[in-house]
C-alpha cells in the first residue's frame, strides 16, 4: 500500500491500517491533500480546506477510537468553530462560525478529523449544486454533468476519492439524490435521530444531517458517531442508538420489501427503471419478499414539500440581513434600503424565489389555503407510510427518476428541477429514514452514469435499511466501480 493508494480506501479499510500503525493519521491527511490538489481543480467539491488545523488534530488522534484519525469532509452548512460556514452564499461572506455543531463535537469525540467544507446549492436549496453562489461542482463520473444536490460537494468528494466519507444534509433528498448521481451511499436518518444544532436551517422540520460514504458499512460507522439525543436540539429524539455496524450482517430471508405503485410512474428514465427492476429481482433472490403497496397521497408530496419548506425557509433566512455578520450592502439610504439591497445582492435567484414563495404562503389571507392545508396533507402522507409499514419492513424505489444531467439542462425550469425530488421528499415529510445505494449504470453518450436504489425505513429503523443496503451491496459489484477521474489515479 503506497500513499497514492490511500485515497481510494473506505473508512472501514482505513481503520485497520491505522490501528495496525501501517499508516498514521498525518500520512492519511497528506495523501488526501495531494489527491485534492490534483482532482479538485476539475471536480470542485471543496469550498474551504484547513489542513493546518487538521494536522494538529491528526497528531493527537487516538486511532483506537471508532473513527480515530479518519478525515471527514463537512458540507459547508454545518458549523465548525473557527471555519467559514458559507452555505455557498455570498450573504455569508466573511462569516466564520464561532461554535461547533453538535455533530462536529460527536465526530471529534469519535476521533474523526473534519478538514474541509464542501460545496452545495446555496442554503441547500437545489438538486444539482448549480445554485451554489460560489463555484461549480462537477460529477466525477462525467464532468459535464451535475453531481446532484444539494450535498453535491460532499458526494463529488467521496466519489472522486478526495474524501473517505462526508457529512451532508437532506431536506428533500439532498443526501440521497447526489449519492445516487455519483454512485455512492447516502443515508438520511429519521428526523430527530441526528442533532441539527449548528446546522444552518433551511427547513427546520425537514432537515437532517447524514453520511455520504463509499460503502454501507462506512455509513453505519459514521451514524454510530453522530446519532443520538442532544439537549440543545428540542426536536432530537431521546432514544437509544444501536450499533449500526454490528447490526449490518443479517440475511434478507423473511424481510418484506414494499414496492409503492405510485413510485413506478411515467417520467422515470427507462434505464433507471430497468436497473430498479433488476435490483428488486436481486433482493428477491436474496430471500426478501416483495409486496405491492400503495402510498395514495404521493402525488401531493412535491407541492406540500415546496409549501412547507419554503415557508420555514422564509423565516429561517430572515436573519441574514447584514446587521451582525456576513455581507452588507454599501451606503444604504435607510434601514429598509439596507435590508432590501443586502438581501437582493447577497442571495442568489433560487433562494430569493423560495423566500418569496414561503413569504407568500404564510401571508394573511393565504395561510389557511396553503400552509395549513399543506400541513394537513403532510399528516396524510405520514399516515400513508405508517400504514404501508404495517405490511412492509422497508420500501424500494429509485432514488432519482433520472441519472446525472448536464449543467443547465434543468435550470431554466425550476419545476423540472423540483421533480427530481419526487421519490425522496416524502421521506422528509413523513420524518422516516432512507438510504441510497448504487444499483446500476445508465449508458448515455457512451458514458456510464450511476443509478441509485432507494430504501425507505420506519422511523428509527436505520439499522434495518442499512442491513438491506449492505446485503444488496455485498452481493453486487456496483460499489466496486469507481468514477473515471478517480480510476485513472487508482491505476496510475
Amino acid at each position, binding site marked *: 500500500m503506497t500513499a497514492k493508494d490511500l485515497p481510494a480506501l473506505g473508512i472501514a479499510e482505513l481503520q485497520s491500517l491505522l490501528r495496525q500503525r501501517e499508516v498514521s493519521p498525518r500520512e492519511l491527511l497528506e495523501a488526501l491533500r495531494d489527491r485534492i490538489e490534483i482532482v479538485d481543480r476539475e471536480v470542485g467539491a471543496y469550498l474551504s480546506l484547513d489542513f493546518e488545523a487538521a494536522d494538529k488534530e491528526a497528531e493527537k488522534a487516538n486511532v483506537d477510537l471508532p473513527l480515530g484519525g479518519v478525515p471527514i469532509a463537512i458540507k459547508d452548512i454545518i458549523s465548525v468553530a473557527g471555519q467559514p460556514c458559507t452555505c455557498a452564499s455570498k450573504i455569508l461572506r466573511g462569516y466564520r462560525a464561532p461554535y461547533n455543531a453538535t455533530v462536529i463535537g460527536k465526530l471529534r469525540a469519535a476521533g474523526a478529523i473534519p478538514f474541509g467544507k464542501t460545496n452545495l446549492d446555496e442554503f441547500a436549496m437545489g438538486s444539482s449544486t448549480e445554485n451554489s453562489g460560489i463555484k461549480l461542482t462537477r460529477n466525477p463520473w462525467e464532468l459535464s454533468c451535475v453531481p446532484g444536490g444539494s450535498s453535491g460537494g460532499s458526494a463529488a468528494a467521496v466519489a472522486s476519492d478526495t474524501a473517505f466519507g462526508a457529512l451532508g444534509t437532506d431536506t428533500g433528498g439532498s443526501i440521497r439524490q447526489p449519492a445516487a448521481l455519483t454512485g455512492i451511499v447516502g443515508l438520511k436518518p429519521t428526523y430527530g435521530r441526528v442533532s441539527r444544532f449548528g446546522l444552518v436551517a433551511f427547513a427546520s422540520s425537514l432537515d437532517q444531517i447524514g453520511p455520504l460514504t463509499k460503502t454501507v458499512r462506512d455509513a453505519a460507522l459514521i451514524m454510530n458517531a453522530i446519532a443520538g439525543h442532544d439537549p440543545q436540539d428540542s426536536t432530537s429524539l431521546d432514544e437509544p442508538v444501536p450499533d449500526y455496524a454490528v447490526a449490518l450482517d443479517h440475511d434478507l430471508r423473511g424481510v418484506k420489501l414494499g414496492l409503492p405503485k405510485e413510485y413506478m410512474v411515467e417520467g422515470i428514465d427507462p434505464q433507471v427503471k430497468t436497473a430498479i427492476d433488476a435490483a428488486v429481482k436481486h433482493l428477491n433472490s436474496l430471500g426478501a419478499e416483495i409486496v405491492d403497496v400503495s402510498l395514495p397521497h404521493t402525488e401531493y408530496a412535491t407541492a406540500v414539500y415546496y409549501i412547507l419548506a419554503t415557508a420555514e425557509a422564509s423565516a429561517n433566512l430572515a*436573519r441574514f440581513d447584514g446587521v451582525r455578520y456576513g455581507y452588507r450592502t454599501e451606503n444604504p439610504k435607510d434601514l429598509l434600503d439596507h435590508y432590501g439591497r443586502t438581501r437582493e445582492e447577497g442571495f442568489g435567484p433560487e433562494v430569493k424565489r423560495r423566500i418569496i414563495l414561503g413569504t407568500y404562503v404564510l401571508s394573511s389571507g393565504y395561510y389557511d389555503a396553503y400552509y395549513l392545508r399543506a400541513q394537513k396533507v403532510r399528516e396524510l402522507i405520514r399516515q400513508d407510510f405508517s400504514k404501508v409499514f404495517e405490511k412492509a419492513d422497508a420500501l424500494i424505489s429509485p432514488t432519482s427518476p433520472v441519472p446525472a444531467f448536464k449543467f443547465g439542462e434543468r435550470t431554466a425550469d425550476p419545476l423540472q428541477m423540483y421533480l427530481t425530488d419526487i421519490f425522496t421528499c416524502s421521506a422528509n415529510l413523513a420524518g422516516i429514514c432512507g438510504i441510497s445505494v448504487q444499483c446500476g449504470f445508465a449508458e448515455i453518450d457512451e458514458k456510464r452514469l450511476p443509478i441509485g436504489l432507494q430504501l425507505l425505513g420506519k422511523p428509527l429503523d436505520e439499522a434495518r435499511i442499512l442491513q438491506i443496503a449492505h446485503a444488496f451491496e455485498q452481493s453486487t459489484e456496483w460499489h466496486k466501480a469507481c468514477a473515471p477521474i478517480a480510476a485513472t489515479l487508482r491505476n496510475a
Partner: protein
Amino acid sequence: MKYVAAVGLEVHVQLKTRSKMFCACPVEFGAEPNTHTCPVCLGLPGALPVMNHEALRMTVLTGLMLGCDIAPICKFDRKNYFYPDMPKNYQISQYDMPLCTNGSVSLHDLAYPKDAQKNIVTPDKEVHLVRIHLEEDVAKSFHFENSTGIDFNRAGTPLMEIVTQPEINSPEEAFAFLTSLKQILIYGGVSDAEMEKGQLRCDCNISVRPEKQAGLGVKIEIKNMNSISGVRRALAYEIQRQISALETGEKLEQETRGWDDAAGETFLMRTKEFAHDYRYFPDPDLVPVTTEVLLADVRSRVPELPKAKRARFVQQYQVSAYDAGVLANDLVLARYFEAAAKGAKKPKNVANWILNDLQNALSGAGKTISDCPIPPEALDELVNLIDSGKISGKQGKEVFAEMFATGKRAAAIVKEKGIKQLSDLSAIEALCDEVISANPKAAADFKAGNVAPLNFLKGQVMKLSKGKANPQLAGEILERKLKS
C-alpha cells in the same frame, strides 16, 4: 356631550428567571453590553432554541394568580418582522394558543394614585384579561450621533405579555391596574416589575366615544410607556386630545402614537397603512409541551395574594383595614410586619410603629424596608418595652432613633443609658406633691374648673423626673390630688 374612554393595556413583564427564554445566558440588568450572549440569543446561523421550563412555570403561576384558564399545551410561534434589535428577524412568541386566557385583576383602593383615592368611581373594580402569553424579549438599541449600537444582553429574556379587555375607563384606573398587577407579580416572585429597569413595559390602546354610542370608538395605541405615572399622564392627555378632536368634528384614524414625557404630549408614530403582516406560524424548532405535568407543581407555588393578606391582617392582628392595605401593598413591608408582630402582645402597636416612625425614618434616610437597619424582632422588642410600661412612649422614640442609627437592640440601649420609666406610685406622688406646692396658681385654676393647667402640671412632673415618670400615672395622680 359626555364622552367615555375605553382603555386596554398590553403589559410586557420580564420574568425573573436565572437564564434566558431559549438559552443558558444569564438574565441580568446593567451588565456590560453584549456580555450575556451566545449563538442562540444572537440568532447565529444554526443555533436552536431550547425552552426554559421555569419561564413556562412562572407564566402559568401568573395565570393561576390571576384566575386564568391554562392552555393544555404550550406551543410557540414565529412572529416575522425585520428590525435590528431582533437577531433572527422573527420573534418566538405565542399566537393562537396563549398559555393563559381570561382571568382578571381587581383594583384595590390603595392602588389608585393618592390624590384619587377619595373619588374612586367603581370601588373594587375587576379588569378582565384577554390573555397572557410568553415570548422572548428583543435586544436594546442605543442611538448615537451617527450610528446605533445594539446590546443583545436583553435579547431572549423571557417576556410575558398580559393583554386586558378594554375595560379601563380612566387614567386613574389604569394606574390602579398596573399597581395592582405589579403587586401580584412581586407576590408571585415572577418579576421585580421595575419599570425603570424595563422589567415592566406598557402599551395602551385608547378609544373615546360619546356616552350613548354602542361599541368602541377608533383605537389609538400609545407605545412603550415606562412609568406608571407616565401611563396616567399619557392617558389623561390622549383621552382629552381625542375628546377635543371629536368635539371639533374631526375624524380619528387608527394609529400608533408615542409619549413624550418631558413635553407631556403624545405624538404620531405611524398610521394603519404601515400595519405589519406578521405571518405567524408554529416554530418547528420547538416541540409543544403539555402543561398538565407542571400544573401541580405550580399550584403549590401560588402565594397568598394581596387581597387575602389584607383580610387576614385585619382578622389576625386587629389592624385597621387601611393599615392592612398599606402593609400588604408592599410584600417586603408585609413580611416585616408579620415577623415583628409574631410575638407582639399588641400587634396593632407594631403596625403603628412601622407605618409611622419606621416609614418616616426610612424615607428620611433614603432607605427602603429592604435595607432597614432595625430587624423586625428588634422592633417587636421595643414595642414590648413600651407596652409593658418599662419605658415611656417618649423614651421609646429616643430608643428607636438610637436603634435606627446604630443597629443596637432596644434592651442594650435602655441599659446603657439608664432609661427606665418611673412607675413607682409613692415616688410619683411625691413628685406631684412637690409640683403642686411649687405652682399654687395653676393648682388653684384647675380647682376653679379650668382643665388646661393639668397638662402644664403634668409637664412639670415629667421635667422633675427627667422624663422618667410614667406620664399616664402622673396625670392620674395629679388629677386625684387636685380634685380631693
